[in-house]
């Protein structure tokens, strides 16, 4: 719909990806590892943002989509011996299937009921990971062997246990998810989601199938979150029930709120900020969560629309 500002939007996003690429050679080893994790989890936040930020659907159960990708990839690689790319595809398929199934049922509700229903479904998934402990090993989780995570390409084999390769693979996933998000947001579909967020009835009376569009948003969100989960399993080699817990449903909400809901760059900024606030404060005190809480309160007071959201509101209205 908007045709203005496309060049600078592309330049900004491409510039960010190039900067992150350069960091592979500039960051110290420890921070490169942290950034690898942040890039993957930012994709999780991006998926959450499609549903919460752009469509206005506040889910309290997104850990289930991350877990669908995590276990979809992890179980197929660990138990069935599938190669890593096939495991990744299985993770995406699991995320899509779960998103469609949950979406069809949960979208019959709205508001608080929707939050509760998504929370309930996520708890079911979490409990299933504990119930089938024979296969999942519950909280203890599965550790994927390094050689099972190799990615065979024509003429080369990528080893995700190598820090640089892992960082670059995480960046590739992040860049793809970022490009997909920007494309969706600028496409008529993205505009439709925003308009639905603003007023569903208005859209219905204009002839939009609100349910179908919201279901599509849940599917896109679920696939992005599952991609993050599958990548996490393959890049870091660990698949545990902790990732399906309520904590991992709340975290993407905090990351998105902190960075800026309904902004394409909010998820990475929020994830990065939260990770480093925790990282720095935990070095000084065991009561670091108190500091994190204070930091969040200050941010909400002075940046009510999140970091990128406030930037857009005050100075850069062209930011998508």
């Amino acid at each position: 719909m908007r045709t203005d500002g496309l060049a600078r939007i592309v330049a900004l996003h491409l510039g960010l990806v190039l900067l992150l690429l350069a960091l592979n050679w500039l960051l110290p080893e420890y921070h490169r590892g942290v950034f690898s994790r942040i890039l993957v989890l930012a994709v999780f936040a991006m998926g959450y943002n499609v549903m919460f930020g752009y469509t206005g659907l506040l889910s309290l159960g997104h850990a289930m989509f991350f877990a669908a990708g995590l276990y979809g990839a992890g179980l197929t690689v660990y138990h069935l011996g599938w190669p890593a790319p096939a495991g990744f595809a299985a993770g995406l398929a699991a995320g899509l299937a779960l998103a469609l199934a949950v979406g069809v049922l949960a979208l019959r509700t709205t508001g608080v009921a929707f939050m509760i229903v998504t929370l309930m479904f996520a708890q079911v998934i979490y409990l299933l990971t504990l119930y089938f402990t024979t296969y999942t090993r519950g909280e203890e989780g599965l550790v994927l062997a390094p050689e099972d995570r190799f990615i065979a390409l024509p003429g080369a084999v990528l080893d995700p246990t190598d820090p640089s390769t892992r960082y670059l693979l995480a960046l590739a996933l992040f860049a793809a998810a970022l490009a997909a998000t920007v494309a969706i947001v600028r496409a008529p579909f993205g505009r439709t989601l925003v308009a639905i967020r603003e007023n569903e009835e208005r859209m219905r009376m204009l002839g939009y199938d609100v349910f179908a569009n919201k279901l599509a948003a849940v599917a896109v969100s679920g696939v992005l979150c599952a991609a993050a989960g599958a990548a996490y399993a393959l890049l870091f080699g660990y698949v545990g029930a902790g990732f399906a817990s309520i904590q991992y449903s709340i975290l993407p909400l905090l990351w998105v709120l902190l960075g800026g809901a309904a902004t394409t760059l909010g998820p990475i900024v929020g994830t990065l900020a939260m990770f480093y606030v925790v990282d720095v404060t935990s070095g000084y005190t065991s009561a670091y969560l108190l500091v994190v809480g204070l930091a969040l309160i200050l941010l909400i007071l002075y940046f009510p629309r999140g970091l990128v959201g406030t930037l857009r509101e005050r100075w850069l209205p062209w930011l998508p």
Partner: protein
Amino acid sequence: MAAALELDRINCFYGNVQVLHDVSLTLRQGEVLCLLGRNGAGKTTALKAIMGLVPVRSGTIRLGAVELTALPAHAVPAAGVAYVPQGRRLFAELTVAENLEIGLMARGKGRAVRDAVLALFPVLRERLRQVSGTLSGGEQQMLAMARALCLEPQVLLLDEPTEGLMPAMIARIRETVAGLSARGVSTVLVEQRVDAVLPVADRVAFIENGRNRETLDVERLRADPDLVHRYVGVG
């Protein structure tokens, strides 16, 4: 004249409270039919029932051969009915162009339709990049009508389009409705004041307490203004 839209003994409820009682109306091709009545009489509910936004418990609504009551709400605009609700209900944070785009996207319409619609409302062409929430009341009403016309409807439902507007803008809205009528677009116009409808309506249906009392030709009302007071006590 052929019926464009037909409501046959429709009954609607809000919870257990019945708000429309056996309402029957016929809108002819190219006609402007005004629903006149007091606040809370059921005029807006009748429009929402046509749009499928309020469930019809019994009775039927037909647009030509299509039974609208059998369609989900989002399919009614695709069948050929567009609705401009009271209070305009624009996307206030979006620009004029983006509001129109939402109307165009709904039916996959392109630039030709947009240009045709903007030709009806030249002032909007000058304000395409303006955020719609900052338009004047009259301009917002024009934008709401323009967005609805992007659907290229056979039937246009207008809910109190002149509410709160200055006389010059009211005259402009009337001209547009008359122009659409001349092109064969049938219009249902909801108003509370009879002086707002006499210059543009072909017939007036009086709604009172969820029932349609009588439908009269506008010439008859002009000839005998006491009829308005007799039916619904408004004027």
